[in-house]
């Protein structure tokens, strides 16, 4: 299923961040085509709709449809476009690569999207820790202003646009779009009640569209090479385009890989062009397919598992941010779940009761089981706590995400939990007696 790289085509080349190399590779061609070729904003939206592009941030919502939610009459308010560059889902590192290595690809997509949305000012909300990325982006923005791709009357057209980079302050929840909006407004990063949705009332009270970095990069190529070309890439018409996969864990060659949407999980893990198999020849025990918030899959479940939105939804998990975390047979699943629970407990914003109180509780009970102090009723307790945190109990879906690794690991590895409780130690891994501890 390999094909020519699209999103990563320029990554790794000499001075790939510079505007002159981008222009030499035909960069800003899509923008020229739109602004000087008589494309209307509606035509851009239509093209994106036709491409079947679905948001790459995690939810997989069709991008063109989302743009269509901006009210026709904005009552005199501006429309804002926010680039969600707050990549913080554990195991995800694709946006960082795109921003640091090929910032103009993203900027072009952002300017095109802004044109489609009739948006005068857009923001890039970048994760605070991505200091280098923020610098690269700022340099690229400065270059784009110099060359007239940003600012007043871009390429002599009547379209003007400005982009501002805003650095986050280190909160996972600011990747949630309304949390991001609050944070951008200078408030505490905590999600808003919906409705109203951001497309109607977003940042500064104005209609707002939030798109992921990779999504915006895709827009560049959709416009440049056409919706039909884009839609042909991928497993089926609902899962189109090139996709970046973040492979990490116990594989020989972790990294960011590009493949057409719907790459087989086995191919990603074992293919010569991708992961090249499990490290030290160990067996796969579990795979998290879409970042920490996605339900775990077992070795059996990754057989015939296309890595796209619908393929993983069919397995009651999700593609999410396409962060594939591979765990081998020596991984203690309770340890892994505890680790993830700790992350969610640390990152809950604290506004809703079930999440604020539930996430630390889950972590404590898991720690107790992992530490050998588990009780017979603890596994059931974990399930009960989890079930009373999700499905509308909270404002945002953070707590739904937080319980996914807990519930899926219990469901799929219940025996291992039971072993912990009964034997006061791990079944496998460094805290299991079955494995000799090497110096």
């Amino acid at each position, binding site marked *: 299923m390999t094909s020519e790289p699209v999103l990563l085509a320029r990554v790794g080349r000499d001075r790939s961040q510079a505007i002159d190399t981008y222009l030499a590779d035909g960069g800003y061609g899509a923008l020229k085509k739109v602004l000087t070729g008589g494309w209307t904003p509606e035509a851009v939206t239509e093209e994106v709709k036709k491409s079947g592009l679905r948001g790459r941030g995690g939810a997989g919502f069709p991008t063109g449809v989302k743009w269509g939610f901006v009210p026709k009459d904005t009552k005199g308010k501006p429309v804002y476009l926010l680039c969600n560059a707050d990549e913080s889902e554990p195991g995800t590192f694709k946006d960082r690569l795109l921003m640091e290595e090929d910032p103009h690809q993203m900027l072009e997509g952002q300017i095109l999207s802004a044109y489609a949305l009739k948006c005068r000012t857009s923001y890039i909300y970048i994760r605070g820790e991505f200091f280098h990325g923020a610098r690269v982006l700022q340099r690229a923005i400065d270059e784009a202003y110099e060359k007239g791709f940003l600012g007043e009357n871009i390429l002599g057209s009547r379209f003007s646009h400005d982009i501002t980079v805003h650095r986050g302050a280190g*909160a996972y929840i600011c990747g949630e779009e309304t949390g991001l909006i609050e944070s951008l407004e200078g408030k*505490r990063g905590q999600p808003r*009640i919906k*409705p109203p949705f951001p497309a109607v009332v977003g940042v500064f009270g104005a209609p707002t569209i939030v798109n992921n970095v990779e999504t915006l990069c895709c827009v560049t190529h959709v416009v440049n090479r056409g919706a039909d070309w884009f839609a042909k890439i991928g497993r089926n018409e609902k899962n189109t385009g090139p996709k970046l996969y973040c492979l990490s864990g116990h594989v020989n060659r972790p990294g960011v890989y590009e493949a057409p949407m719907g790459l087989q999980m086995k191919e990603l893990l074992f293919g010569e062009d991708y992961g090249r198999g499990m490290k030290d020849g160990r067996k796969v025990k579990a795979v998290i397919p879409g970042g920490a918030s996605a339900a775990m899959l077992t070795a059996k479940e990754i057989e015939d598992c296309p890595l796209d939105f619908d393929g993983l939804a069919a397995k009651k998990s999700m593609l999410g941010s396409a962060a594939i975390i591979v765990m081998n047979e020596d991984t203690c699943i309770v340890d892994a779940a505890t680790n993830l629970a700790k992350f969610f*407990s*640390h*990152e*809950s*914003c*604290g*506004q*809703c*009761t*079930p999440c*604020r*109180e*539930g*996430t*630390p*509780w889950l972590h*404590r009970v898991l720690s107790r089981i992992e530490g050998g102090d588990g009780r017979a009723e603890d596994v059931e*307790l974990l399930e*009960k706590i989890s079930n*009373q945190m999700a*499905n*509308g*109990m*909270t*404002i945002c879906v953070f707590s739904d995400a937080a319980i996914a690794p807990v519930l899926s690991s219990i469901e799929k590895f219940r025996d291992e939990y039971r072993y912990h409780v009964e034997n006061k130690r791990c079944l496998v891994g460094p805290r299991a007696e079955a494995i000799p501890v090497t110096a």
Partner: protein
Amino acid sequence: MSTPAPPPAAEKKTLTIVFDGKPIEVPPGINLIEAAKLAGIEIPHFCFHPRLSVVGQCRMCLVEIEGIPKIQAACTTPIKDGLAVKTTTEKVRQSRAANMEFLLINHPLDCPICDQAGECKLQDNAFGYGEQRSRYDERKRQYAGYDRTMIGPHVVADMTRCIQCTRCIRFCEEIAGTGELTFLDRGGRTLVWTHDGKPLANDWSACAADVCPVGALTTKEFRFRRRVWELKKTPSVCPGCNIGCNISIENRDSVVYRFLPRLNPAVNDYWLCDYGRFLSESLNARDVSKATVRHASEVRDAVVPAAVERIASEIRSTIETEGPSAIFFLGSAHLSNEENFLLRKIADHVGCGNRDVVVDRSRVRRMKSKTEWIEGDHAGANYAGARDMGLSPGPGAHGLADVLEGKWTPQVVVAADASFAAAADDPEKVGRLRSARFLAVAARTENALTRAADVVLPAASLAQKEGSFTNVQGRVQWFQRAFLAPPPARAHWDLLLLLGVALGWGDRTWTPADIRGRIREEVEGYDEVTEEELAGGGLMRKGLFVSTGAV
């Protein structure tokens, strides 16, 4: 302002909401919690407050709505016609129980030593909607350094009890407009504190403790003084200034323990300023517990009727020798309409036009009603009412200014309330009043005026009597008696009636209600001031309301 045209029938539309199968008409613009209340259904909640923005954070008000698969927060659900709400399903019951469990796992459950006990929403909702036991037996969260700490002049914070509902934060932000409080940290470590340790010191800071549904914010003044269920609540009006905020006096036996704001959307809404609130303690002061009469240089105790008779005889003899214009009647903005009316009537009865009322201009105090800010600028609650009752100098007669400036010296001064103004404690001004041959006052606490007086009558406090005040808006409001004055102290109106009867006017059997009946008949603008109207949050006196000018 032009009279708005009556709205067309179509605009008066109400919405139909179906609660548990029972349809009810509700006005638009309210949320499901309020709508349910109209239907007689309680939806438990913590973070929702009718005057604060809706944040949907506590998640206690979850209900099921027909056609929506997920459970919904009642406070944030947009209300629309035909909404079918279910509040009694198993799913709702479980969600409430789940939230109660979450809220209690880190709560210290120190109700036995918590001042909020008895008026704690956490207690009430745990009792009403929680399970009997918790499955949590880990170490509870502690906020070392953030417990039992003063965060302002009045408010004590104890974050271990906090349930992070943000009502206090929103109060400071949205009502006080000062924004001292904020969330710090996040997740399970979230706490409410002041920005950079700056104090919570706005003029209404104790309201943050009022809106706190738990014992996380309490006031220094009330802390550990009484269990709230031992307190009796009596509707009253704050004596602090002429805004006349509605309060509830809370007492046990004959001790006032606190004032709490009493809802009146037209005046103080849910709020009360710190200045007014903490006047409560001043009601417990009593220096004057007996009537006293000066004989030559000796001050002797007397029974009240005898002391009153002494005043009456001085008045009578003065009328005989010098005529009624040698007498001066001084009312007070701290006295009720009824009392000031009696004083006016006594003055009329003896044919004296020298009457006045005075009160200090105070710092301008502000209070947010439901719709607007109201400003009060007089230290007495009833400045407007005293003027309405006619306590201004009659034509060609003298007022207090003449006395204090030394332009006129009355022979007899009857000051119905010794604490009428700061002037009552100013030796120079008291000296002017004292230059009268005879000086009589009613008083509860001692000051320069009582020490100078020839007759001092022991009078009741605000908590010990009934009456009405007219506020800066012209709104007549009722305060009721919480408990009796310790004998022989009597309400001012009672003392004044004694005096009136001694002088041949009035009836000893009159009550404040009877006096109000006469006010209705005789005072312009007060003809509808009935008990029914007063009980419903007060009523605006009629006629062009003349603002209370400076004196």
